[in-house]
């Protein structure tokens, strides 16, 4: 009896949990793809971190010369 009276509150609770957890998973996944793509774009243009600079030094030099 009580279950049928209050089923809307139970469903709304579980729906809000799905929405919030889904939004969190989507945020983390999309953010990862965005950051990875930005990093790949920069590295493609020859901008590399110091640890990777040895590998891409000629490209960095070209960028500096161009500037």
């Amino acid at each position, binding site marked *: 009896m009580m279950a049928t009276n209050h089923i809307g509150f*139970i469903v709304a609770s579980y729906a809000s949990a799905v929405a919030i*957890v889904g939004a969190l998973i989507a945020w983390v996944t999309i*953010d990862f793809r965005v950051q*990875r793509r930005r990093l790949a774009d920069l590295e493609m243009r020859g901008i590399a971190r110091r640890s990777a600079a040895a590998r891409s030094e000629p490209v960095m030099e070209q960028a*500096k010369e161009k500037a």
Partner: protein
Amino acid sequence: MALLDFANPSRFLSFANRALPLLGGVTVVVFAFGINQALIAPDDYQQGATVKIMFLHVPSAWLGMLGWGVMTIAALGTLVWRHPLADVAAKAAAPIGAAFTLLCLITGSLWGRPMWGTYWVWDARLTSELVLFLLYLGVIALWRTVEDPSRAARAAAILTLVGAIDLPIIKFSVDWWNTLHQPESIFRVGGPTIDPSILIPLFIMALAFTLLFVTLHVAAMRNEILRRRVRTLRLMQASAVS
């Protein structure tokens, strides 16, 4: 592997890339089992089927507080030990903790209406939980306002340490004040007042939510490390051009 080994962001990225598929898989399995147990758990003799809301409300309340606890430890890591990943951990935990606190407030409201006759009342437990949510929003806003991550980290760490005062207030609010919210019924002297047929599914759901928190936190930390690398490379690019 020593804990200090994870102080290196590259090592943490390598760890995250290996751990995340495993963490995600275990989380899905424990969630499936937990939801199954929650759905077949008996109704409460007083609250009827609305007790099923508890399987979401209580774990999300714990994780809202756990999130701030993680940020508090990370704040000490930033201010005292200057651990390179401390502010990354703190920044990554804030939106996740805020989301679980919001879920706690929403499910609490939806549980309160049929049981108390109201969605909201300004009692100590509900108000202190709302304060925690507002503190989360404040920390997130602070991170977004200050552009330099190391300066933002110090400011956010101080706010986090001050905000940690809210954690014992939330926990003991039902003991210190006369509240509409029920008193402590799980971690109390004399043992839980909840029947094992409901308590065990609750603990399984709490484990599932905790695994979800850990998975999301590791993933968000990985994203934050990548974001900082992008920022560093853009600064390098700008200085090379100028």
